[in-house]
């Protein structure tokens, strides 16, 4: 029998405790938001624009209304001013884009919601939505992608990074690399669809919606509907994967809320898989330009990284990865630039390692090109340029274990057995390629609160509005409280995913654990202080202290302020504005989790079929509270990296910017058969500075660098350097 793949522990690691909600998930008892049953529910179905940018001339709703069971149809003509225009998150607001839902006859992009049917059954709503007839005037030549003639390029000056004199140093560089890369649009496609259920009781609204940030939904909706935020509760107990897609308030929520108010009944919307491609944000396509100069022994003398990222006309959104890739390696002369290219598309958003995946692909491939030019081992090239201080401002890394990760992963992989010359490793008709790349992700945190209650019977309860997205938040919360108080783990219960609980940071940016764990620790400290119980007191002493206090329970609220946030920022979390901060954004230091990715692939000599045979990643991310769930996140991330390199791209119709593969048969994600041997190694690391919990987060780093390791392995196998993702066999013919 096979033992579990996850590690059992190690230095600065907690116990690999089983998932708190594991039983609920394997029995089907876990209720995701669309599983919540509300009496008298009416069902909604969206109708999305089937043209690109353009104008609605009119609706013919006769056939739709005639469908048996239809109750209401919302369009810009029927909603009136029920929804207010409010700022998007990029302007300090809450919504994921700044289009007013059903706001006017203007269509900004293909797939924009332009109507919503409400009916007695799902079947009737779906049929009626299909029977809506829209007369439209399409714009003659919408800008469909980052290369379209009508797209507008704008340089983002605040994202510029500069050190030394790049131009002069590059001109003088003994060895130079100058290369351009592209990465495609990609969609998160969590398995759970974008669902929303709304129910009003008098003037109080309850929303059931899968979310990474219930408080953003709550406060954003309050603004949009002109309802006091206190009257809104958002519940998201289980989330069926998010990956950035469920971070902020999308247009659908207000529509469902006003439909439920009009009807005086609960309304349930489950957007289809295809609709999900424009209901929320996505990873925008990029173009990138990297120039490197180095001495003959591999020391970088000049580094320039410029990116162009697609955005919508309505919103300027940029992930700005060049502000990070310019600070990872020692180099005296640096130039980083970011541009947006606005087209007639829906507003992009966050997708697992949003800046690090595309920009990391370009930089780590360019470094491999440099290593090849120098005749140097790519691991050694990273070693020569490793640094403990960030090169632009000279700020220290709180901790950095990049080369330890490389050494551990290289040894496990057997890297020393590599024959460096491209095309020199073969097995029969298969060309073998070995490649590697660095992984990095900013260690971030946001202001968060948690309440811990210790009851006289010796049980503890932890509550915070963080989210269980599958990353193991619930288990982590129980473990931290158990460890801090000395209460047995099985005697700790957890509540999360509810805006009525103490607020937490948006669960994105790998900031959830670091932020919420810190808040729990503060609350536990306060409980022990109140009871006068020292830190390592035995459980019996703790219980005795509660009994002696004469109280039924002792409860404390912990509020953790993220490093770099002012004390005045704390109340912001009570208004749904707790966002992650860290990485290169701090005034006094930089903080990153680091890792090393190694990949072996084989390419068939005749068919050019590409198979990843094995991948080894090693990651150092500060304290690992739960090696089981952390390991699973890293494995999942690495597999995402394989998808990102070889499978995933959203196809864009050149006439109207329609997404032509908006389904799971044509938008390819890795399946069982694509994945064989994947090894994720947790490299122990201690960082007492990064935050109270010493946690850097592992949700995203696993995906970073894999695409570059794969493109580098393709080069090693074939001698062909591919700079455009995804890499497909036709590129190798």
């Amino acid at each position: 029998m096979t033992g579990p793949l996850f590690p059992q522990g190690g230095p600065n690691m907690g116990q690999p405790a089983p998932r708190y909600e594991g039983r609920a998930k394997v029995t089907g008892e876990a209720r995701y938001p669309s599983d919540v049953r509300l009496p008298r529910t009416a069902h909604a179905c969206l109708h999305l624009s089937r043209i690109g940018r353009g104008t609605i001339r009119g609706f013919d709703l006769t056939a739709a209304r005639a469908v048996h069971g239809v109750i209401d149809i919302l369009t810009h003509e029927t909603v009136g001013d029920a929804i207010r225009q409010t700022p998007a998150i990029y302007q300090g607001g809450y919504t994921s884009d700044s289009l007013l839902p059903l706001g006017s006859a203007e269509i900004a992009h293909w797939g924009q919601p332009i109507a919503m049917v409400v009916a007695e059954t799902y079947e009737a709503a779906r049929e009626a939505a299909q029977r809506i007839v829209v007369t439209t005037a399409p714009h003659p030549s919408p800008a469909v992608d980052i290369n379209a003639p009508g797209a507008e390029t704008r340089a983002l000056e605040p994202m510029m990074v500069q050190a030394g004199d790049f131009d002069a140093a590059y001109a003088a560089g003994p060895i130079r690399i100058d290369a351009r890369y592209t990465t495609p649009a990609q969609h998160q496609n969590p398995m759970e669809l974008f669902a929303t259920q709304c129910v009003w009781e008098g003037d109080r609204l309850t929303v059931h919606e899968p979310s990474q940030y219930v408080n953003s939904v709550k406060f954003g909706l309050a603004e949009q509907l002109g309802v006091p935020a206190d009257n809104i509760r958002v519940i998201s107990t289980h989330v069926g994967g998010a990956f950035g897609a469920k971070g902020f308030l999308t247009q659908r929520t207000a529509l469902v809320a006003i439909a439920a108010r009009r009807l005086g009944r609960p309304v349930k919307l489950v957007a289809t898989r295809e609709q999900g491609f424009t209901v929320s944000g996505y990873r925008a396509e990029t173009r990138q330009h990297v120039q490197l100069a180095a001495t003959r022994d591999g020391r970088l003398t000049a580094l320039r990284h410029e990116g162009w990222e697609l955005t919508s006309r309505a919103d300027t959104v940029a992930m700005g990865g060049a502000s990070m890739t310019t600070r990872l390696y020692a180099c005296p002369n640096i130039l980083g630039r970011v541009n947006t290219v606005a087209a007639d598309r829906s507003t992009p958003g966050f997708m697992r390692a949003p800046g690090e995946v595309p920009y990391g692909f370009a930089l780590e491939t360019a470094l491999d090109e440099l290593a090849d030019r120098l005749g140097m081992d790519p691991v050694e090239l990273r070693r020569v340029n490793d640094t403990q201080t960030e090169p632009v401002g000279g700020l220290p890394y709180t901790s950095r274990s990049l080369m330890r990760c490389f050494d551990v992963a290289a040894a496990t992989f057997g890297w020393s057995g590599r024959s460096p010359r491209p095309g020199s490793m073969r097995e029969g008709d298969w060309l073998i390629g070995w490649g590697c790349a660095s992984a990095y992700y900013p260690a971030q945190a946001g202001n968060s609160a948690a309440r811990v209650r210790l009851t006289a019977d010796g049980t503890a309860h932890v509550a915070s509005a963080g989210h269980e997205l599958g990353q193991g938040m619930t288990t982590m919360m129980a473990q931290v409280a158990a460890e801090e108080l000395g209460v047995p783990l099985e005697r700790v219960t957890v509540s999360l995913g509810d805006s009525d609980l103490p607020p937490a940071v948006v669960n994105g940016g790998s900031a959830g654990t670091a932020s919420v764990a810190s808040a729990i620790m503060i609350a536990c400290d306060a409980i022990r202080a109140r009871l006068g119980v020292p830190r390592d007191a035995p459980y019996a002493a703790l219980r005795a202290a509660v009994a002696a206090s004469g109280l039924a329970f002792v409860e404390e609220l912990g509020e953790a302020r993220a490093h770099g946030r002012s004390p005045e920022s704390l109340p912001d979390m009570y208004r749904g504005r707790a966002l992650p901060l860290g990485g290169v954004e701090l005034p006094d230091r930089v903080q990153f989790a680091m890792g090393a990715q190694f990949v072996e692939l084989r390419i068939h000599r005749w068919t050019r079929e590409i198979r990843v045979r094995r991948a080894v990643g090693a990651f150092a991310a500060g304290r690992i509270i739960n090696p089981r769930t952390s390991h699973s996140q890293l494995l999942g991330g690495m597999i995402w990296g394989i998808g990102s390199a070889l499978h995933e791209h959203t196809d864009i119709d050149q006439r109207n910017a329609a997404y032509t593969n908006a389904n799971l048969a044509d938008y390819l994600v890795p399946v069982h058969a694509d994945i064989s041997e994947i090894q994720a190694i947790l490299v122990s690391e201690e960082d007492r500075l990064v935050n109270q919990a010493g946690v850097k987060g592992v949700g995203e780093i696993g995906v970073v660098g894999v695409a570059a390791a794969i493109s580098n392995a393709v080069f090693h196998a074939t001698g062909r350097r591919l700079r455009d993702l995804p890499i497909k066999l036709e590129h190798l013919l």
Partner: protein
Amino acid sequence: MDTEKHDTTAPSSNRRRFLVGSALSGTVPFLPHEAEARAPLAARPPGDAAPGFALHVNAHVYQVALDPRTTLLDALREHLDLTGVKKGCDHGQCGACTVLVEGRRELSCLSLAASMQGREVTTIEGLATPDGRLHPMQQAFMNHDAFQCGYCTPGQILSAIGCIREGHAGTPVDIREYMSGNLCRCAAYPNIVAAIEQARDQGEG
């Protein structure tokens, strides 16, 4: 427009088969008369005229009357409140809706509920014993951390049981091939394969 069971005779061969009362029927929507009056005949689905039929799920018998377009997936989720079965695509592309029909894995989003008359459907809710003992596949998934968000998990577990029964779980390569209809976006794949091997070695399927 649909109602839950009233009376059906349970086959005595299965001790777990018993009747489900109409507890759910109060929550099932009825079409308001206005809507009926407004609907021209041509656009009216014959739904409300649909004859009732029996759905056999997890050894329970449900008497239902559903819009004939209702998929097994929507019938289970929206009408029988068996929400362990998940909708990930509604197009037969993801496997989240996998159930066992007569012991074989099927995609409930591609089956009409009406086509299930007289066939025994097993959902994730029907795997554990009535006293709460998990099916060995459920236990194996927990032991190996074979899920993260858990959304694909009911489908993976039922599909894995079907995979072993079909004799397609002999090697990791076979498991991967024959489980490829079940997507896991959290990508718990290596752990799922390990879990299936454990259950297989325990002789379970």
